[in-house]
């Protein structure tokens, strides 16, 4: 609509109402509203981004870790790929799997990553950790004969420079192949493998000797970028001659004799040697190394956990296990988490209940005393609320221990024999007492704010209508205070099930919570996935309660400090 027509419409008096600048009022208002919204969002945005990055991203990372299982496929990529074709229950896997396993494990052992994988698989099948550690130590022996045989042919096979010229070949370098090997090592070790290594595999060599090119490139990358040596000065590790023999046995003889790169004569001689010697039996070699490799379950476990994501940690967290035959219960001796979850729930409920029991009378008296007195007494509630958690926990340690204040007093009064001092700490009792004390203000404050709004006239009216004290309280006062109990209980319960410090210090072994187990897995046992899975379950429980809290109280009504 242009100005002219608008003016005309206005003169007629039936057009849209206009703002001072001539735009229709509706549009103008909508724009103002939009501006307001954008301004509000701009004010909120920095904090929102801050919280997203510093807080929500870590939580998301934890959720991811609870299902993440890349370690198996990243440490043993060849093995997991070849295992795909193998059906569990057919005995041991075929030779290609063992061969892939040899090269994967060799590289992992050189990079010292095989123990990590061993610990990971040990969570699922006991014994894997020591099996992998032993295999990592002994794997050099498997290729020993080939390495010796090739040097016997010509001592030049021991020179780094000779290998370098052979593998570089003539013609174009295969850069994509090199980058793929860089990725492989980065995924294996988690370190960066950037930078020049003074070597790039020739495209013709990669075609002719694929296994050797792979093994040699891996070795070259590792030697230069991790060990800091030069390629031409060091003899390649045993996996390279092993790969060479395999390649030469498999390669077309015409292709080898037709090859025109450096060292082609030596290559031809080596081919003849390779074809006349016995091939390595990888399966037998591994079983000679450790007879546990003959257990099919080992391979079934690797196959089961070769996916990038796994429900295994969650199953572990509820005392189940993902075995090759499906989900099954753990051994009775290993079932600890269900009990721990139950204990956490039970003790948190007990603590919540004790808080209601102790908090209700106090909140009532605070709400019914004259303001001045109530404010004075409120300090007694707020002081513990503001006092450091560790101060209060250490105070309880001082009070409850066997040589502590309470026991000393009881012994002094003759109520308890000196030899039979009460055990009040490092058990569930200690945790419950200390946590009730610590969380009591969180019960009293919401109860108090609800009770303040209950008019005393209702109870008086009930009494004047003939209700007894008990009835007046139970039928009139108590129902009005229920929202306060609800708010306080959920708050206390949420805080209680996630507690870590207090149970850790006064809980001993019987009084610890699921949080302590999470901390243990993260800082001591290093089973991060299980820690993350336990944390995710706990988080889900808390979020459900939070949702309930929002329904009962509303997030906006959260108040602090009375």
């Amino acid at each position, binding site marked *: 609509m242009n100005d002219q027509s608008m003016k005309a419409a206005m003169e007629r008096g039936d057009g849209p109402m206009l703002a001072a600048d001539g735009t229709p009022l509706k549009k103008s208002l909508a724009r103002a509203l939009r501006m*307001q919204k954008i301004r509000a969002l701009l004010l909120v945005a920095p904090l929102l981004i801050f919280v997203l990055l510093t807080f929500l991203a870590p939580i998301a990372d934890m959720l991811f870790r609870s299902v993440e299982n890349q370690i198996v496929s990243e440490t043993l990529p060849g093995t997991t790929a070849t295992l795909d074709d193998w059906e569990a229950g057919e005995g041991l896997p075929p030779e290609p799997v063992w061969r892939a396993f040899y090269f994967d494990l060799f590289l992992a052992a050189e990079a010292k990553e095989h123990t990590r994988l061993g610990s990971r698989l040990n969570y699922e099948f006991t014994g894997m950790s020591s099996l992998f550690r032993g295999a990592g130590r002994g794997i050099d022996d498997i290729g020993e004969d080939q390495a010796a045989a090739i040097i016997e042919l010509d001592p030049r096979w021991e020179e780094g420079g000779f290998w370098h010229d052979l593998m570089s070949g003539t013609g174009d370098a295969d850069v994509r192949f090199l980058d793929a090997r860089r990725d492989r090592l980065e995924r294996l070790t988690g370190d960066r493998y950037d930078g020049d290594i003074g070597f790039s595999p020739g495209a013709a060599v990669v075609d002719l000797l694929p296994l050797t090119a792979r093994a040699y490139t891996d070795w070259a990358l590792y030697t230069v970028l991790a060990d800091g040596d030069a390629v031409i000065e060091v003899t390649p590790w045993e996996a390279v001659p092993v790969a060479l023999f395999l390649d030469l046995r498999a390669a077309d003889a015409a292709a080898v004799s037709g090859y025109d790169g450096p060292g082609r004569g030596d290559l031809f001689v080596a081919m003849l040697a390779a074809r006349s010697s016995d091939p390595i039996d990888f399966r037998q070699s591994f079983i000679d190394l450790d007879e546990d490799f003959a257990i099919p379950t080992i391979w079934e476990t690797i196959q089961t956990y070769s996916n990038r994501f796994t429900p295994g940690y969650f199953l572990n967290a509820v005392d189940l296990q993902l075995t090759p035959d499906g989900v099954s219960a753990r051994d009775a001796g290993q079932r600890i988490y269900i009990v721990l979850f139950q204990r956490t729930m039970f003790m948190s409920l007990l603590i919540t209940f004790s808080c209601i029991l102790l908090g209700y*009378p106090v909140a009532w*008296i605070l709400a019914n005393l004259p303001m001045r007195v109530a404010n004075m007494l409120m300090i007694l509630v707020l002081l513990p609320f503001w006092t450091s958690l560790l101060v209060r926990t250490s105070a309880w340690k001082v*009070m409850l221990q066997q*040589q502590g204040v309470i026991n000393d007093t009881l012994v002094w009064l003759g109520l308890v024999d000196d030899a039979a001092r009460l055990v009040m700490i490092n058990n569930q009792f200690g945790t419950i007492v200390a946590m009730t004390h610590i969380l*009591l203000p969180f019960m009293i404050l919401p109860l108090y704010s609800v009770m303040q709004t209950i008019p005393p006239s209702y109870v008086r009216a009930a009494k004047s209508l003939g209700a007894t004290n008990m009835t007046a309280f139970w039928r009139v006062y108590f129902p009005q205070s229920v929202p306060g109990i609800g708010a306080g209980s959920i708050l206390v319960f949420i805080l209680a099930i996630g507690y870590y*410090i207090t149970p850790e210090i006064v809980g001993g072994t019987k009084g610890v919570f699921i949080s302590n187990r999470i901390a243990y897995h*993260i800082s001591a046992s290093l089973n991060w996935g299980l820690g993350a899975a336990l944390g995710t379950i706990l988080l889900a429980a808390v979020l459900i309660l939070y949702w309930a809290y929002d329904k009962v109280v509303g997030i906006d009504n959260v108040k602090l400090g009375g």
Partner: protein
Amino acid sequence: MAERAIVHSVLFVAAIVAAFGAFLGLFVGTANGSGLWGIVIGAAVTAVIAVVLVKAVPSSAASRRGARWGLAILFLIVGFLLGALPGAVIGFFAGLFFAWVTYWLATNRYRDSLPPYATSGQVLWHYTFRTICGVIFFFLIAPIVVVMPLSFNAEDFFTFTPEMLSFDPAGYSLKHYQDFFFNSQWQQALRNSVLIAPTATLLSVGFGTLAAIGLSQPHVPFRRAIMAILISPMIVPLIISAAGMFFFYSRVGLQGTYLGVVLAHAALGIPFVIITVTATLVGFDRSLTRAAANMGASPVRTFFKVQMPLILPGVISGGLFAFITSFDEVVVVLFVGSAGQKTLPWQMFIGLREQISPTILAVATILVAISICLLVTVELLRRRSERLRGLSPG
């Protein structure tokens, strides 16, 4: 004080006073050999005293006051003979208490706070209930109070020594405080805490106040969802935040750095700032900013000259909450920090778990003193804020 007539039978008063006497007698008796005899003698002596106070003292305010002080001095002397200085102190207060309670009961003053028609049962319940509440208050405050004198212990014990109980100066010392102030580990921890907490507070207050102002605008899209996200660090259990931050911060190289700990603590403090500042803004009168804009003030000037002074109490108390959150926090710093970022609570945690050192109690006492200061500040600010809000309509 107007004198009051004695309205209760001597027997009633004597019986109740005797009960208190028996309680005191238990402790005096135990200290002198036999608790049982203490109970009996205490009950008998205080019953007789009650009878004498009610029957033999003339019913004028002056003579009753005289009787009270007389009893206090008498108990002081007896207490001194039985238990030297502490005995004398306890005796003095016990004397004052027994005289007061005798007249309080005898002259019916104990019914003053109750309606005149209350039955004896109701009176009994009233005082029983108050006693229960008193015990709960005692439960709340006792652990904190017990720590303070113990921090002056001359021995390396976590309990009261006989020297301490007899007020012997040799039983007390400042050595744990000395340890705190001269031990390099504790000093390093203190330095870290003093470095990390204010920085984290500044971050959370800066971002938090802006966001709270944004959230209190009349039209905010996704207000509930944003609020839920911003409050979440308070709701998610600390161990989960700590685990997540440990994973994520080690991925991005923040684990074990000051920056990592500061960011983590700032995130934890944000909900407190949001909650307190939005609560202050609820009562903020928007027409004030409009008036300022009307008179030609720029938005920035309006913010600093009009809005900020009014919401300042909320901002400061939010900041104090954020500060205490960071200053007291131990779980997250345990995971996100490394030995170089060891804070005071971390050092206390180690002290409690591994080498039990009474220096912890000295630190605890200092921290309690700090929290009392913070508590008083927040209370004063809250009242000021309520007063200010009372001035402005809305």
